[in-house]
């Protein structure tokens, strides 16, 4: 996983609530067996009409074609658990999403793919969207080390992030390797359980 330290990038405003995972990446694009390549179909229903780009959609306009940050309204990422949603964002080049609230599974999937989801109050999201409409000069900086969003005028807005997740993002660490360091505890748990709940059946299909 690519570490996330600081990011300075164009922010694209998407002033809509309840952007669901079917909008982020419709199910017909989930037939891949790889993680890459989904960026072309990110926000497909909003971005294209009959295979042609809709000129009014934000990611089809300059400078937002090169956006690295997305700002949206409440409940971003609701719907399915598909990790294809963060993969599509990442493949497009988005490494940070700012919104007043996120759906749970999407929120946790972001961290596992090196994307930083930032929760900020609605008024602040609206201000940042305002900044983002200023064109090419409207780049935001996200400093994860210091936990601040830096506005184009230099003003800093603090944000909260879970300490462990922050640490893993900063270091680019993968969860599995970390958990396997607790292998003895898992072994012990399994031994204790198989003694106390010996009725627990095993699955085998012949």
């Amino acid at each position: 996983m690519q570490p996330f330290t600081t990011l300075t990038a164009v922010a694209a405003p998407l002033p809509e609530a309840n952007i669901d995972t079917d909008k982020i990446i419709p199910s017909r694009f989930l037939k891949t067996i790889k993680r890459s390549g989904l960026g072309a179909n990110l926000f497909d229903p909003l971005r294209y009409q009959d295979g042609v780009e809709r000129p009014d959609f934000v990611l089809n306009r300059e400078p937002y074609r090169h956006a690295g940050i997305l700002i949206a309204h409440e409940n971003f990422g609701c719907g399915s658990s598909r990790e294809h949603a963060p993969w599509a964002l990442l493949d497009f080049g988005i490494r940070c999403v700012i919104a007043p609230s996120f759906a749970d599974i999407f929120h946790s999937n972001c961290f596992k793919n090196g994307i930083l989801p930032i929760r900020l109050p609605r008024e602040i999201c609206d201000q940042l969207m305002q900044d983002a409409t200023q064109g090419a000069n409207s780049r935001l900086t996200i400093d994860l080390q210091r936990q601040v969003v830096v506005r184009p005028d230099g003003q800093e807005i603090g944000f909260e992030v879970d300490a462990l997740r922050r640490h893993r993002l900063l270091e680019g660490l993968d969860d599995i390797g970390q958990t396997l360091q607790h292998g003895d505890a898992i072994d012990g748990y399994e031994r204790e359980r198989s003694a106390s709940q010996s009725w627990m059946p095993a699955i085998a299909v012949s």
Partner: protein
Amino acid sequence: MSGQATAPRTLFDKIWQSHVVERLEDGTAILYIDRHLVHEVTSPQAFEGLRMSGRQVRRPDATIAVADHNVPTSDRNKPIEEPESRLQIETLERNVAEFGVPYFPLLSARQGIVHIVGPEQGISLPGMTIVCGDSHTSTHGALGALAFGIGTSEVEHVLATQTLLQKPARNMLVRVEGALAPGVTAKDVMLAIIGTIGTAGGTGHVIEYAGSAIRSLDMAGRMTICNMSIEAGARAGLVAPDETTFAYVEGRPFAPKGEAFAQAVEYWRTLPSDSGAHYDRVVELRAGDISPLVTWGTSPEDVVAITGVVPDPASAPDEARRAQLQRMLDYMGLSAGQRMTDVAVDTVFIGSCTNGRIEDMRAAAHVASGRRVAPGVRAMVVPGSGIVKQQAEAEGLDRIFRDAGFEWREAGCSMCLGMNPDKLTPGQRCASTSNRNFEGRQGPGGRTHLLSPAMAAAAAVTGRLTDVRELV
């Protein structure tokens, strides 16, 4: 986490605490997982990850795989036509063989939608932690198990470690008291709940459903309710295990047998929430206030009584919401004030993990019996598993459907998400027993109205959204 071991605990607290392997500094738990259900869409990249890092599946005997999302629901003996679907299914079959994971192949009667198969086979049991790379894993909570959807990185994490890194959820209680009126089903109860709390209402919470209306539901109804917990934003749904649960579990292929079953039941009886347990949020509904419901918009919270009308965007509280409502109406091809019973449909889909069980087939067949699908309507019935299909055929339900002009298909997700050839074309309007009415969910440009199986069958025979109470 709420409380010490001695304080009154909720069902969620009990399952959670008994599965914590270790608590990390920041409160994250390494949570042990009892059952891992794997399907073809969210697993290829997880197995790829294992292979790349030289890791094994830690507990194949706690894992089961089945293909469901992509599978064709027409003749199973023919090769799968869509190359990408075929590739995903072949990839799953290669992976389960390589990693030694138990698998129900396509031609097995035990194949079906993963959330139908787990309970049906006795793989999902009370008190367990159950995960799957699919948000509707919440279905299994009906057994009194903590069951939730995970992403593909987490699928890989569970395959490799049999654990997950999780923070405890908050507890929410949804209590539904009273008796349901005739024609009102579990689906209507759940749509009413989502309509009340909204699609973000349960965010960060596990919802426990309680009250006399829930207790009196059979397991199929409880599964319908828990299934759509995710549409209410919750991480999971739960119903406390009781005699109905134990009777359902007993004798299922993978359930404990004989003395082991008795021991298990003894343990399961300790699981229901203690009296006085703390909930962070409580919502109460009266069963008698719930009528048959349909959705009118593109979010599952957009519900209205079948006797009602399409809402007017002008009545929305603010400009953003007004614009959003108008956009939904444009997408759905509806106008404010239109009566729901005047909305004509051209497609009817009965199936999915929400309503693809034998009880759902029976409810739909009851309405379809002796009637004909309206001219110009395509109505399909897709059983949730091969076992459901066999049972329905043994009861003659397939005949009732076929005689009425419904298509009777093989088991799979089908038109719930349109990853296989069963999908809507732009502008088509579907009365669907599935769980999501998002834009394009059932096919690009398709319009979805969520409703119960009986209501779907009623729409099929009249060609419009219909109050089922007029037909039975």
